[in-house]
């Protein structure tokens, strides 16, 4: 145990450790290189030994095996993590900004009466405080925060840190503890509808956000997608409205896409959306707001009303196609 240990909470996607977890270990490794200490990984599952390989970049893998940890449910997960933190007394606890990490991080901090910082892109020590640079207001602002307390709990912005390349000791340590089932229980996993187009396999995606304003306008986007030989995708509000199926949603709770072209129309570029499309080869964004965060990550930007641009672009593309067919 050292003053500077960093505890990484392994995030599971189905049966496997998520890529985000490797980013957490990468971030933890940067800290321990500068400040000393070890990288600890908390692995809550039914069979830690089968998962431990992927966490080999950590120094100590603290595996709690228990049937109640087969699927995420808040009670036993929070109990197990609080117990590990009490035993190990790390300086930092790192969570992925996954749909589980977002629930657990502030909850753990509240249980331990310690600070929690969300959406961190960078962090370091300053005296006995922890300084973190965090995304704020859906990416429209950057906040530099100072936290005092021990441990400090952080959720890390996906993609902000390089996955671990360090070589850890990778020692698996079974951790024995009693855990009880909580009041909130897992019943079943419902997977995405397989009958729809798989947008993760498409070369060209026309992605619409709230800027489309009305369901009637979806037709303009559909025509544009057809003219490009691509498929429609969307940000979450469009799916919430029921204008497109959940299988078309790009982002944290949607799909991770890497098309050759991602044409983002009326999408602001909130971090939860960007994490699903930042791997696109070419991104063109159309937005009426010159300050929209999507313009930071797009290759090309257009400050314009998408409703005006879509029909023009469809027409130009159709004409180009016609010309190239004639040739």
């Amino acid at each position, binding site marked *: 145990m050292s003053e500077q240990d960093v505890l990484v909470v392994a995030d599971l996607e189905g049966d496997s450790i998520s890529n985000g977890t490797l980013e957490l270990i990468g971030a933890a490794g940067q800290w321990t290189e500068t400040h000393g200490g070890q990288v600890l990984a908390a692995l809550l599952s039914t069979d830690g030994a089968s998962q431990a390989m992927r966490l080999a970049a950590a120094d100590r893998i603290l595996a709690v095996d228990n049937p109640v940890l087969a699927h995420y*449910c*808040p*009670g036993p997960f929070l109990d197990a993590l609080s117990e590990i933190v009490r035993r190990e007394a790390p300086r930092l606890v790192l969570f992925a900004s996954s*749909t589980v990490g*977002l*629930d657990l991080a*502030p*909850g753990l901090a509240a249980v331990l009466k310690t*600070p*929690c*910082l*969300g959406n961190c892109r960078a962090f370091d020590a300053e005296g006995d405080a922890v*300084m973190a640079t965090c995304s*704020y*207001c859906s990416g*429209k*602002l*950057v*906040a*530099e*925060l*100072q*936290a*005092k307390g021990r441990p400090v709990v952080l959720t890390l912005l996906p993609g902000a840190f390089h996955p671990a390349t360090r070589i850890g000791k990778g020692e698996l340590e079974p951790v024995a503890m009693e855990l009880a089932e909580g*009041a*909130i229980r*897992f*019943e079943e*996993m*419902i997977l*995405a509808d397989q009958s729809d187009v798989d947008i993760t396999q498409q070369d060209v995606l026309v992605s619409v956000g709230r800027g489309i304003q009305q369901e009637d306008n979806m037709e303009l986007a559909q025509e544009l997608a057809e003219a490009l030989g691509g498929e429609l995708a969307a940000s*979450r509000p469009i799916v*919430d409205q*029921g204008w497109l199926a*959940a*299988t078309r*949603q790009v982002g944290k*709770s949607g*799909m*991770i896409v890497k098309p*050759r*072209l991602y044409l983002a129309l009326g999408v602001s570029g909130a971090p939860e959306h960007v994490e699903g499309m930042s791997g696109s080869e070419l*991104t063109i964004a159309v937005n009426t*707001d010159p*300050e929209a*965060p999507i*313009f*930071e990550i*797009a*290759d*090309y*930007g257009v400050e*314009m009303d998408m409703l*005006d*641009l879509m029909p*023009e*672009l469809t027409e*130009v*593309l159709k004409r180009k196609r016609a010309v*190239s067919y004639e040739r």
Partner: protein
Amino acid sequence: MKIAVVLRQVPDPIEPLELMPDEKALDYGEAGFLVNESDEHALEQALLLAEDGTAEVTVLAFDFGDVETTLFSAAAKGVDRILTIPWEEPFPPGTDVATALFADAIRSVRPDCILIGCQAHDELEGAFGPRLAVELELPYLGVVRGVRQTAKEMVLEAHKEYPGAAKARMSVQLPAVLGILAADQPPRYVPVSRIREAMKSAEFEELELESVPPSVAVSVARLSFPLRGDGARMLEGNEREVAEQIAEILVEKGVLT
């Protein structure tokens, strides 16, 4: 069943945000406000759960920002009670203060189920729902899309979202706090005429709560606008000119042949 819904005012992210001269806070005097989007979904989910007529919905909010508009709209949607927490400052309460005061307010209602949005874009210290739950000594489930009543009165079923459009069906033994990302249907629209009626008849109950000292564990050193970096190359011109440029780029990059 008694349901409590927490409604928070957040700065309108579409309007330009301004900073205070010390760059440590948003200039709330310059901000436009609206109800936090996922809180609005939480309210919708509560109303859907109450549609069978047996549940009572109480809304709680700080008296801050443009809260009256939000609360009159909630009244017009048919909530049973509206409680406000007095707040004199020109900035919203910090996380610790909000947690303590909302928890006090909620205890006075003794609800079976507390619904709150699973995030707000002006949160710096992670989501608020999990803290509130710990303060109330209740379990929390967040990133929920869709909640149903089961055959057992004190058991709900909730769908928690996972990547890849997957979701887990969870059973929730009440009392509990649920962090809603989206309701089973988009928040209902209320005609302006109904809101006007509500403005005449709706009553807000103002709570008297003990004040809470702000925490010093987390402080803002500086706020700034993100560096544009290289950013996007902006295409200029009218619609036709921009469309032509996009087509050229697509040909150049081999996306169009």
